[in-house]
């Protein structure tokens, strides 16, 4: 037991001398949180739509007025008038405008005759996000255009009334659970991967192997020391991250305590996984080479940035065994819904089981000789 403490003490003293590891593992995820949070979270605004009115009748003018109302209020797009369709389409192709709304000749006549009038939207669909925002906005416009001037007293059409049970969650808050997990991962990757293998390559481990330390003491010493550093990174992220992302009542002590439990479970799971991956590695290039790949394979399928319901089956399979998935899910419950630990018991159980399994395998593979 005292030997495990000696190994942990060694790591903590080193860490106190150069806390670069924890600073890096805190900073990188925070930068990602802020940049990704603002890059993806916002509503799309100020698209440019060219309007070609070849009709000039009253219904056409009504459409154009409604467009201007959107330009003035929601600001999803503004309108530029073109006299002919060809020059509008040319500007669309050149990227000057994002879409062309074309009101064909005879539009007013067809409206008045009730002969299924149409207006056309040509849009730049290389940018799906802008294109769908534009189509949504114009569809909304047409729904209100088509609405009867006077509502009938009874109606048979069904409306969906949506009840939101939590306050509106901006994207940056949706990202925070993934960011906390990521900071624990980066700490495990640098501490349990890169530094661990560098020490091995320098011969430091050889020095320990000639002492009477037991195999299990070495393994527990390495993993617990790594877990403590990962926990420090995670603990900083749950507080600083909550403040930055604007979680309501960000430092609620009860929620922090519950999150810390999950931080500990996640740290143990990720550092054990790293130890298993690195147990037979001696080339210092390996942890550096797999860093990015591991990050991608674990982070993105976990549902940290996009709901996993949209994933193809092979990615759902990765998500199923990925400890990130359970950590992210647990943090989502705690951060966004402020639930109790009972709500995340499946997540905690998985992370615990994952830790036991990976440490067990690593112990089998660990060699106490060179």
């Amino acid at each position, binding site marked *: 037991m005292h030997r495990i403490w000696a190994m942990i003490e060694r790591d903590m003293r080193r860490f106190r001398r150069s806390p670069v590891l924890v600073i890096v593992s805190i900073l990188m995820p925070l930068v990602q949180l802020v940049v990704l949070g603002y890059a993806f979270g916002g509503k799309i605004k100020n698209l440019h739509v060219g309007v070609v009115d070849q009709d000039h009748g009253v219904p056409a003018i009504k459409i154009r007025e409604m467009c201007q109302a959107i330009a003035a209020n929601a600001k999803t797009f503004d309108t530029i008038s073109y006299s002919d369709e060809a020059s509008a389409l040319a500007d669309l192709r050149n990227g000057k405008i994002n879409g062309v709304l074309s009101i064909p000749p005879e539009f007013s006549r067809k409206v008045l005759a009730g002969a299924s009038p149409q207006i056309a939207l040509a849009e730049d669909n290389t940018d799906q996000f802008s294109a769908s925002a534009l189509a949504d906005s114009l569809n909304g416009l047409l729904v209100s255009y088509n609405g009867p001037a006077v509502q009938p007293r009874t109606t048979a059409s069904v409306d969906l009334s949506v009840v939101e049970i939590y306050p509106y969650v901006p994207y940056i808050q949706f990202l925070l659970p993934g960011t906390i997990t990521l900071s624990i991962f980066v700490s495990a990757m640098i501490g349990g991967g890169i530094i661990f293998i560098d020490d091995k*390559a320098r011969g430091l481990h050889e020095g320990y192997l000639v002492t009477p330390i037991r195999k299990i003491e070495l393994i527990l010493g390495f993993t617990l020391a790594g877990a403590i550093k990962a926990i420090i990174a995670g603990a900083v992220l749950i507080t600083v991250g909550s403040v930055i992302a604007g979680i309501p009542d960000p430092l609620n002590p009860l929620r922090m305590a519950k999150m810390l439990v999950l931080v500990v479970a996640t740290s143990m799971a990720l550092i054990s996984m790293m130890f298993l991956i690195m147990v037979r590695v001696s080339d210092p290039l390996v942890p550096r080479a797999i860093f990015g790949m591991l990050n991608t394979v674990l982070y993105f399928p976990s549902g940290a940035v996009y709901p996993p319901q949209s994933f193809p089956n092979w990615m759902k399979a990765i998500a199923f065994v990925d400890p990130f998935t359970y950590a992210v899910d647990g943090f989502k419950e705690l951060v966004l819904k402020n639930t109790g630990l009972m709500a995340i018991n499946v997540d905690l159980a998985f992370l615990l089981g994952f830790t036991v399994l990976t440490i067990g395998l690593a112990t089998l593979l660990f060699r106490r000789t060179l």
Partner: protein
Amino acid sequence: MQAIEVENLTKRFGDFTAVDGISFSVAPGEVFGLLGPNGAGKSTLIRMLTTLVPPTSGTAYVNGFDIVRQANDVRQSIGVIPQAMTSDLDLSAQENMSIFAKLYGIPRERRLKTIAQLLKDVDLEKWADKPVKMFSGGMRRRLEIARGLVHEPKLFFLDEPTTGLDPVSRVGVWDMLSRLKTERQLTILVTTHYMDEADKLCDRIAIVDHGKLVALDSPLKLKASIPGKNVLEVSFSGAPKDWMQKLKSLDDVADVKAVDNIYRISSHNGPRTTVALMEAARSAGAAINSLSVQSTSLDDVFVHYTGHQLRDTLQAPSAADSPFVSHRGM
């Protein structure tokens, strides 16, 4: 009981035999030197004895403990300085010592006292609180020697303790070792490339080549065991044609080799051969341009037993050679 007893120890890596049936024993209090060219199997041998590498076959007892079945007792009873510099560079000298004292399970009161005494013994007490990354190669080696003695073992293994050190540091390290050996009645097994060190400091020397033991004796006896006790290097001008034959027939000459007009004469009795050589040169009318008489050195012994061939063999790449490992000094 012998401090070390090695019986027919063998280590194979795939189809390469690194150590091939070596047997020897080391008596308590002895300084035992292991010599051999690069790749001869010295490090593998020392790693087997210090339980870092399991043997393929054969047995060895260290302090009476079987190196395979009682590996942990072996580890507790020996001090080891591996070839690589294994101190933690970010920690201070004191901290490095303290961690290892804890790994050896030394109780707290004894720990602080022992560490202070050892740091004093290796002249590092002034730098006890400085991080090891600021230490020179010689200081790091001395710290490792102190660290290896933190649990006061009686048997000490050192794998090339002076390789890569400058001459002054080398002398410093050996002075330190000699003093510690006397003070603490240590038994030492050491590998080195430096013949002069081995000659001066070792009681007995084993020469290992191609994984086999090719010679084992005291430095004096090893030097006496090879032909010629002295070597005369001499050059002449105006030497007659049959001069080579003449030189070979001089008193006590064992062998003569010539390169251009420089002759290398191995002799069983340097002074007598020298006198005879002077006589012969005068009567033949040859002028002696230069003459030096040397005793056989351990270098000659080494070359005699291991041959002149260069050992250009490939070795497994070491992880420490990776460009990603930062090398902070030696």
